[in-house]
């Protein structure tokens, strides 16, 4: 099982990730058509719930508890602080 091909490095030139190659980049399909007026957004903490523990205030990707689902989530999903608009991301991770 010491297959040398397994060590081939993947790298995505679209988003600088080492978890997938350029032709399998999630940004190919996870591209939202955004509304204007990004500066006025507020972070609705009371609407943030976790798909992993059911708790409030964080998204499932950012949960501190052991992952419950056995399907891996290596690349991150839509339910992550990273999927917030830039300004709110800063607020969320603070």
């Amino acid at each position: 099982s010491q297959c040398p091909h397994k060590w081939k490095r993947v790298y995505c030139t679209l988003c600088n990730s080492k978890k997938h190659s350029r032709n399998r980049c999630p940004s190919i399909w996870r591209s939202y058509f955004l509304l204007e007026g990004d500066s006025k957004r507020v972070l609705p903490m009371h609407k943030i719930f976790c798909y992993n523990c059911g708790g409030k205030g964080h998204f499932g990707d950012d949960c501190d508890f052991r992952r419950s689902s056995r399907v891996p989530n290596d690349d991150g999903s839509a339910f992550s602080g990273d999927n917030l608009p830039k300004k709110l991301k800063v607020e969320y991770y603070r």
Partner: protein
Amino acid sequence: EDTRSRKTLNTDYPWILNHDHSKQREIADWLTLEIKDFVAYISPSREEIEARNQTISKIRNAVKRLWPDADLHVFGSFATDLYLPGSDIDCVINSGAGDKENRNSLYSLASFLKRQKLATQVEVISKARVPIIKFVEPESQIHIDVSFERTNGLEAAKVIRGWLEHTPGLRELVLIVKQFLSARRLNSVHTGGLGGFSIICLVYSFLQLHPRIISGDINCLENLGTLAIDFFELYGKNFAYDDVAISVSEHQASYLPKSEYPNLQNPRTTFSLAIQDPGDPDNNISRGSFNVRDIKKAFAGAFDLLTNRCFELDAATFKDRLGKSILGNVIKYRGKQRDFKDE
């Protein structure tokens, strides 16, 4: 050769007949437009809606003649316009005396409707937890289920109509998920699948909790493609069925730790879908959907098929994209031919 492959394509993905979205620069926009076409394609025409309403009012009048103190109401997917072509109509008869749910009444209604030539293929199922009569209305050939003396279906329909009003994209995604599950026979509660109300709760909670939606960053109808994939990712790969319950109310949805509501937990397995009854916090509305394993697997499969198709078509030339479908990778529809209404 070419025309033949084209023909199969058309019967499998009839919604792309008149619209070609393969030139969309963004793959996500292509899928969004295909979803809109699919929804327009399977939505009933005005003639179909009228035929259905006439059928129901004929039966309602007949019920009134038999039992003057009773009234027949439609609930379920027909009351919320979330039905697929060919689905049954769910009705309920409620009466002033409240005494119609018994063997005798079921049989007298069944034979009355037969005599009035309003029902064929009549089945009386009087011993079930929810006794019903099932029949086919001969003129329209619509299948109808009638239950008795119950209001919860009507109340649920009212809540769902409210959700539909304030949640753009809910209708579109529910119809996609419904058609996806029904093709895999995972949409019937009788066999452990997801019933209509559970499907709606999954989609509604997804939309109510999505980071881009709660932050007001996107318009759902312009992002149906990415949102559909995000949905299959959430409930096919990431959602903790063992530990988390879904809670819905008139104006919102949220998640709860199952540990706080042990009565929502399935006594046989922790791996189960729990949707809290808004009227009773200890009641799990989706406890009948015992086949969560296959449902989750199917959703994960839909995610893989859709994203693989996106990667494949993103790399393809415009010429190779022509006539191709993204949605067709997870949804086949071979229903009756409809006139494609271009609006």
